[in-house]
């Protein structure tokens, strides 16, 4: 009788400790998830800003200005264009 009680007490205590530790781990994981989500959001924001920056740098108006003024380029005239037929 006594032995059975002792075993039961041991089981109850160990399950209680298990609950505590799993609860603790769940909270830790949750915090990690939280941080990852915050990071995801900030990366998304940064991605948007980088796209914006790329579009600004690559704006045709800016490209044309640099090509013409800085690099002294000009569009080819029709006789400078050679058309290559795709192989069939």
């Amino acid at each position, binding site marked *: 009788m006594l032995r059975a009680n002792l075993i039961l007490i041991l089981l109850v205590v160990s399950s209680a400790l298990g609950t505590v530790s799993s609860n603790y781990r769940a909270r830790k994981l*949750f*915090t990690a998830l939280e941080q990852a989500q915050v990071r995801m959001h900030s990366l998304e924001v940064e991605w*948007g800003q980088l*796209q914006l920056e790329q*579009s600004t740098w690559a*704006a045709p*108006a800016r490209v044309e200005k640099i090509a013409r003024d800085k690099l002294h380029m000009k569009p080819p005239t029709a006789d400078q264009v050679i058309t290559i037929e795709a192989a069939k």
Partner: protein
Amino acid sequence: MKFANSPLLSQRLPAWRSRLLLLGILAGFVTLAGWSIYLQGFNSTFLQEKGAQRYSRVIELPATRGRIMDRNGGVLAVSTPVKSIWAIPEDAQLQPAQVNQLAKLLEMDVREVNRKLAGNRDFVFLKRQIPPDVAAKILALDLPGIHDQTEYRRYYPSGDVTAHVLGFTGAGDVGLEGVELAYQSALAGVSGSRRVIKDRRGHVVEDVDSIRPPQDGKDVVLALDDRIQYLAYSNLRQAVIDNKAKAGSIVVLDARTGEVLALANMPTYNPNNRTKLTGAQLRNRALTDTFEPGSTMKPFTIALALDKGKFRFDSRIQTAPGWLTIGTATIHDSEPHGILTVAQVIQKSSNIGAAKIALTLPAEEMWDNFEKLGFGHPLKLGFPGEVGGRVRPYKNWRPIEQATMAYGNGISVTLMQLAHAYLVFARNGDLIPLSLTKLDSPPLSGKQIFTEQTAHEVRAMLEMVEEPGGTAPKARVAGYLVAGKTGTAHKVEGGIYVNRYVASYVGFAPASDPRLVIAVMIDEPSAGSYYGGDVAAPAFSRVMAGSLRALGVAPDAPLTPLQATNQNTPLIKEGT
């Protein structure tokens, strides 16, 4: 003496005293039990709510507005978070040095900051929409009563080039114009919320129930091609400046799919900086303004006459002596031409020729033809403020009206409608709907309006317009066959034709297998010539040349004949 022997113990107390005490204790217990039943049983929801307020918080999860992209994936509009700095003036008791620091970071005048902080309101915005890094610096100063708030701001990297297509958003990132308004429901996200448990230091410890994830707005991929859009915009702008015009519009369509590859208007505005906007700048003229198109309408009536078998490509029409009286009115050609073939009526843009052809057709058929081509009702692209123009019911057409409508007077259209209708000649006589957004696959076939043979015959006539002896040699593009038609129309003001003009040109190339339809309209050119062939055709030519090169379309014309023809060949003036 032992305690047990104490004489005091032998004293008997009255029995009612202990009973009274027992009753008192009992009453206390009953009260306690009653109170606990009251709290647990009847009042528990209220108390639990109060308790939850101490530890649980509802966090708003903002959704971001979708991006707008061009067909090549370039970003045309994107929302990015910015900060607004606000203050509670009562709490913000700042030292002069602190105010100076704050004003410097906000790039504001010190006096203005002081004036805002001196007000007796509970809440005041110091500055809205500043970059997040600046806001972080301000918060790092740790000033009392100064707070920040995240907002979203829409940026348009291409600025005025795409202003009219994209439109813009207003407060709360809600679309107010253009695509931003037309696709508001798709672009706007739905913000979500979550209930969490927070600890003493404000960290989120646990998610509780009712998590509603935010739904970010969907990206919209437009049919627009940013290279073609830029070519269209910059050449239109140049044409408007060169011709000292009041306004102008240009539309580029893909002849195979009906996609709108470019759309630009002048005057325009910069959507990133919308202070001092005028109504004229905001008008998306290509869709919201109608004009009398003039001669660009001629091919439609002539195609109808060919289709009905009334005329052939080479039927001869007498246009001498250069004027024609119908009823009480007289119409003119800009110069007398004598006998012309139907093809030459288009090439030389003879009003009399077009009128004579129109008068052989029943009014109902002509009206029906305009209807089928999409004139008289809006295109339903979903753009705000789209109009349909005006085609009056055929029942009260007088012969003179029927005659003038053949060359585009007494009828009003938008530039987009005109470009759309030209798809029938650029295709094989069928008309497909237009699309603002990129299509995964082109529409299989449209509504057949003219027979394939008629479409090809008219296309051949339109090619003659760019040859020497036509009205638009300036629309030529080196290496490609171009087909198109000029238009020059008097403007109507208060129902009277005035001596101000709308010059237009609608055309497509390469004529042997059309890829692009471009329509140009210049409103009130006033730097000399006002003819479509002088004013609108050169812009068409430049945009077409650049766009075909950008798309890598193979040339379909030998170079030699073009180089032989000088661009300064005398221009045949069209009827106005």
